């Protein structure tokens, strides 16, 4: 805290003292006055007003920069852990960056490869920030080779925990070998090694023998990756492995973990295809083995391979990787029918197909705590976790009217959210029409329907069950204001009626948005901006600006 204060004072003196530098920043203030609603699951709020605030201030002078961030959770907003309560300087750093050398001391965000060994990142709307506090170094000894090293502790609300050390190397063969500089085939190779240290004084007993487990103090992950491109073809792959890591996520088993991720694509003007496949087995890697909050203290990240849908009913079941084990495939196809063709019409037509299927692993249990836990076959699969198919056709009907129609089929197994129940099968249809009235005014209509075989059951309390309809009208005027009205209503086998009225004003980098109504948690895109929001009932407001 003292260090942060000195830092705040120091940075403010620097900003005044070092001429020639520049100070920039951004401020965000979100608030809500929420009322209890048992139907949609919004909570009672004793403080009446909840707010999250933050201000990032950045000082830059040539290659040198320094920054600090104020965060205040005076009654953290719904969806945020109560541990955030409080205010202060949550993040500070100094950094020096050139093309061949960069060093950051303080808080930093970093990622090795696809993040399977290390990803320090934040998602401010989800209340996730696992920034490392320590030192981050990048060095480029020659063109084509980039080395990175990090050491630090992870942010945990208002503290830092654990100890993470890591190195990463990336070699671009085309840049390294002069003769291949202009080659049509491009090859980049990489490798990373990350280790965490943790004291092992806690007592955790094995299931059967009752002996105290001998917990490893150091746990390592390592990964190799490849990025290959030739003309329109691309292939990316990464394999990561984790040493013995008994922890709360895997219930203290000693099985080693691994993940294999593949992505192949082909594209040319107006056409693209991409296929991804992934197998994850026991790859949850966190700084503190006993941590109970499931989203906190992750050192690594295993990307989910399903599409991130943005229409409300298609994104009702957002999928997150099951780091304990899953296997999945995903395919994506885009095609543009050209102008002045049969299917293209006057303005052309875009079609986008997507499908994914994610299943559990085929495992055989061999014991509980203190054993290897289970065995699995590489190609065997277990329960279906998630699957979806979607087709989107978008078309400009005239110079003023644009229309998009989407059909989606989603299969979701509630077991991935930790509760039993039947698998949900949902059909979703969406129509989305934008009419540009003139240069400064436009109106957008969105209608959605979801038919599901799931039925609401108070014992499970899944608010997404049942058949739903939704309508949304959004009016944008003078390019600065918008007003939107929407309603989601469960007309069969479900509960809930989510009505919402929002309006907003944008001027340059400043944006104010005020909403009233009932909000389902999930990704919301209105007034031209997308964000993730928790369930709420009442008034919400958000002010953001940059300078």
């Amino acid at each position, binding site marked *: 805290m003292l260090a942060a204060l000195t830092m705040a004072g120091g940075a*403010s003196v620097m900003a005044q003292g070092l001429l020639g530098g520049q100070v920039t*920043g951004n401020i965000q203030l979100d608030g809500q006055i929420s009322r209890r609603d048992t139907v949609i699951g919004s909570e009672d709020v004793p403080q009446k007003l909840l707010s999250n605030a933050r201000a990032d201030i950045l000082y830059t002078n040539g290659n040198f920069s320094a920054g600090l961030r104020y965060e205040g959770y005076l009654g953290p907003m719904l969806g945020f852990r109560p541990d955030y309560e409080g205010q202060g300087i949550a993040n500070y750093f100094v950094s020096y960056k050139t093309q061949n050398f*960069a060093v950051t001391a303080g808080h930093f965000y970093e990622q090795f490869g696809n993040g399977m060994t290390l990803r320090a990142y934040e998602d401010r709307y989800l209340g996730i920030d696992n920034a490392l506090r320590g030192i981050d170094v990048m060095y480029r000894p020659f063109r084509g080779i980039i080395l990175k090293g990090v050491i630090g502790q992870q942010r945990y609300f208002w503290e830092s925990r654990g100890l993470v050390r890591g190195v990463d190397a990336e070699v671009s063969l085309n840049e390294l070998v002069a003769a291949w500089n202009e080659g049509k085939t491009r090859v980049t190779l990489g490798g990373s090694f990350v280790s965490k240290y943790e004291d092992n004084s806690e007592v955790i007993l094995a299931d059967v023998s009752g002996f105290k487990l001998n917990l490893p103090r150091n746990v390592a992950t390592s990964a190799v990756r490849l990025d290959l491109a030739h003309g329109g073809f691309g292939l990316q792959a990464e394999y990561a492995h984790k040493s013995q890591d008994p922890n709360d996520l895997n219930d203290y088993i000693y099985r080693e973990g691994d993940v294999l991720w593949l992505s192949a694509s082909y594209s040319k003007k107006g056409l693209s295809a*991409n296929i991804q496949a992934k197998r994850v087995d026991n790859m949850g890697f966190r700084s503190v083995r006993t941590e109970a909050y499931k989203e906190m203290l992750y050192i690594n990240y295993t*990307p989910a391979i399903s599409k991130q849908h943005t229409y409300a009913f298609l994104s009702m079941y957002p999928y997150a990787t099951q780091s304990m084990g899953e296997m999945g495939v995903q395919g994506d196809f885009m095609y543009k029918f050209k102008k002045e063709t049969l299917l293209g019409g006057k303005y052309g037509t875009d079609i986008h197909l997507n499908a994914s299927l994610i299943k559990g692993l085929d495992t055989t249990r061999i014991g509980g705590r203190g054993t290897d836990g289970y065995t699995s076959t590489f190609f065997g699969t277990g329960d279906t976790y998630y699957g979806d198919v979607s087709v989107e056709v978008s078309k400009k009907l005239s110079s003023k009217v644009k229309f998009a129609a989407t059909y989606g089929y989603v299969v979701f197994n509630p077991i991935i959210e930790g509760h039993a129940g039947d698998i949900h099968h949902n059909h979703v249809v969406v129509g989305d029409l*934008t009419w540009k009235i003139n240069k400064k005014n436009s109106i957008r209509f969105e209608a959605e329907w979801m038919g599901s075989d799931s039925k609401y059951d108070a014992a499970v309390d899944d608010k997404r069950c049942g058949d739903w309809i939704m309508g949304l009208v959004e009016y944008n005027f003078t390019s600065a204001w918008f007003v939107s009205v929407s309603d989601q209503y469960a007309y069969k086998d479900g509960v809930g009626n989510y009505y919402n009225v929002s309006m907003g004003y*944008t001027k340059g980098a*400043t944006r104010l948005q005020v909403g009233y109504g009932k909000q389902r948690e999930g990704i919301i895109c209105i007034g031209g901006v*997308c964000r993730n929001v928790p369930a709420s009932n009442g008034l919400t407001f958000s002010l953001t600006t940059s300078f």
Partner: protein
Amino acid sequence: MKRIILSIAAMMCITLGMAQNAKMPDNINLKSLDGKTVQSSVIQNYGGVVILSFWATWCKPCNTELDAIKEVYEDWQEETGVKLVAISIDDSRSAARVKPWVDGKDWPYEVYLDQNKDLARAMNVGADVPYTFIINAEGEIVWQHKGYQPGSEEELFEQVKAALK
């Protein structure tokens, strides 16, 4: 605690005075679509104006904006010589889909990946996209805008023309 708030308030006051035409950072590492690591200094239009647009594959308004600009891009270029550079903030869940996406959309833009959001952070983009900047020939940020509403591109083009003067 008061001291923190006071010092932040003080900094903001200084800032508001100083914030005119901040320079775009030139020392941030990005990835090109063919896998090369490049510095943000590659983003330039040799004496012309650059539109810098932060976007993501999963962001509908971003895609609508980039599609809408595509329709008028040739005219814009002819009239002003402007160049649009699109910075994807897709993370590793969708980053591998960015190149096929850009080809499939047939976008004529220069595109870079900012997976770790280093450039987005250095330019105070915050968490919401789309976010658009206009950079003048001197590398100064002369205009910025959050969000996209149908028709916003008209104002963007007015600002591009103003940045030429």
